[in-house]
């Protein structure tokens, strides 16, 4: 039996909340891209509305962690877990913000036909979302090897991003009338690339939690 049952219970509940905010953020990201692809303005509006809940949950997690640090004097793994919880919650909240940004682009683009580069953005989305789900799994299982694979996927996202931006710039020359959409799509691809980076950051946090050392998964 653990002599710190209450603390362990609180740690578990913070972990559950972290998994909760993570799933909400990734679902929001997926929903926003789907809304973009299907010109679904209603779904885009829902993403914007639901973000309030993600932000609220991040604040709750922070408050809970602050209380635990103040009252339980955690050390070593316990302390790393709490610090990592705050940082991962912040990464995920940011992913939720990208979903909101994409939803806003969706509303701006409206019913206008999408340029063919959207297919590559969709691929970026699939990769970024896969990375985020994988990093959530890695967190639940504390599996650093799984976390390490995420860094490799990030390279693919970065390549796609470079390619999309080049093609969009080229399209700008050919279709000056589409300049507004080109700009929106360039932003959307940027949000995808950033979301994948957050997945990598979270993977690094998992390494720190498990190993107690800082690893660079980006090099």
């Amino acid at each position, binding site marked *: 039996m653990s002599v*710190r049952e209450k603390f362990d219970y609180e740690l578990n509940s913070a972990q559950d909340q972290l998994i909760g905010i993570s799933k909400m953020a990734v679902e929001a990201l997926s929903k926003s891209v789907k809304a973009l692809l299907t010109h679904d303005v209603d779904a885009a509006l829902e993403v914007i509305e639901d973000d309030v809940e993600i932000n609220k949950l991040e604040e709750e997690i922070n408050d809970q962690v602050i209380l635990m640090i103040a009252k339980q004097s955690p*050390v*070593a793994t316990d302390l790393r877990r709490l610090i990592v919880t705050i940082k991962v919650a912040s990464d995920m909240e940011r992913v939720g913000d990208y979903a909101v940004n994409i939803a806003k682009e969706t509303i701006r683009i409206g019913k206008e036909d999408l340029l063919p580069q959207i297919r590559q953005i969709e691929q970026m989305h699939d990769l970024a979302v896969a990375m985020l789900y994988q990093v959530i799994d890695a967190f639940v299982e504390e599996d650093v090897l799984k976390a390490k694979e995420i860094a490799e996927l990030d390279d693919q996202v970065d390549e796609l991003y470079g390619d999309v931006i080049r093609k969009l710039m080229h399209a700008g020359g050919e279709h000056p009338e589409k300049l507004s959409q080109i700009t929106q799509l360039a932003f959307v691809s940027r949000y995808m690339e950033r979301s994948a980076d957050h997945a990598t950051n979270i993977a690094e946090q998992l390494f720190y939690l498990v190993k107690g*050392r800082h690893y*660079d998964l980006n090099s």
Partner: protein
Amino acid sequence: MTTISPIKIKKEIQPKEQHDIKKSVYLTKQLNLWYGDKHALKNIDLDIKEHEVTAIIGPSGCGKSTYIKTLNRMVELVPTVKTSGEILYRERNIFDSNYAVEELRTKVGMVFQKPNPFPKSIYDNVAYGPRIHGIKNKKILDEIVEKSLRGAAIWDEVKDRLNENAYSISGGQQQRICIARALAIEPDVILMDEPTSALDPISTLKIEELVQELKKDYSIIIVTHNMQQAARISDKTAFFLNGEVIEYDDTDVIFSNPSDKRTEDYISGRFG
């Protein structure tokens, strides 16, 4: 354990300073100690450096107090004690038959859990050791008393009441009088056996700050049940369990990323 070699480690918590260049004050080699049949200390190897604060932590009955009392051979007061191995104090084995215990205890002062001033005046408490060592000159004694009380950060609080009984002041002040009494014989090492466990938080912090000051001139070995205290004031921490040293490392490492799971479980309050 899984190895993850190809990934670059950016940074890890490093020892703050080079400890290796510091001299050892106590070098314990394969120390074993028995109380009758009870094997209380098992193959202890510890290298304690000078001008550092070394904390000894561990659950009740782990041998930490026994160890610290072995360092000034106080443990020999227990009739059934047997030891093997060596403790080198400044490169000399304290168990050597020709090592005079009085000489050792002149160099190694001790402060106990409960303040234990003598039922004498504050002045006489501090002057006690020097007088035993033959100092009778009032002027020299005055100087020693003032210097020791200043060293124990209590001079300003008691300078106008040196002739009052040491029992008339608070517990936290009494403990600092006991530290001053230890300083008066100009020791090299100060052993502290849970020196703040009977004190309130403010007195505790005063003693902790004092320990930080004292390490400039002395080497300090402190047994504490207060994990945060060990984390706050010590340079090195040794974790004892069932008479063994489980882990001995820089305090920064012990409290952020200990190598042994038993250390982690103990410092994070999972047992003990």
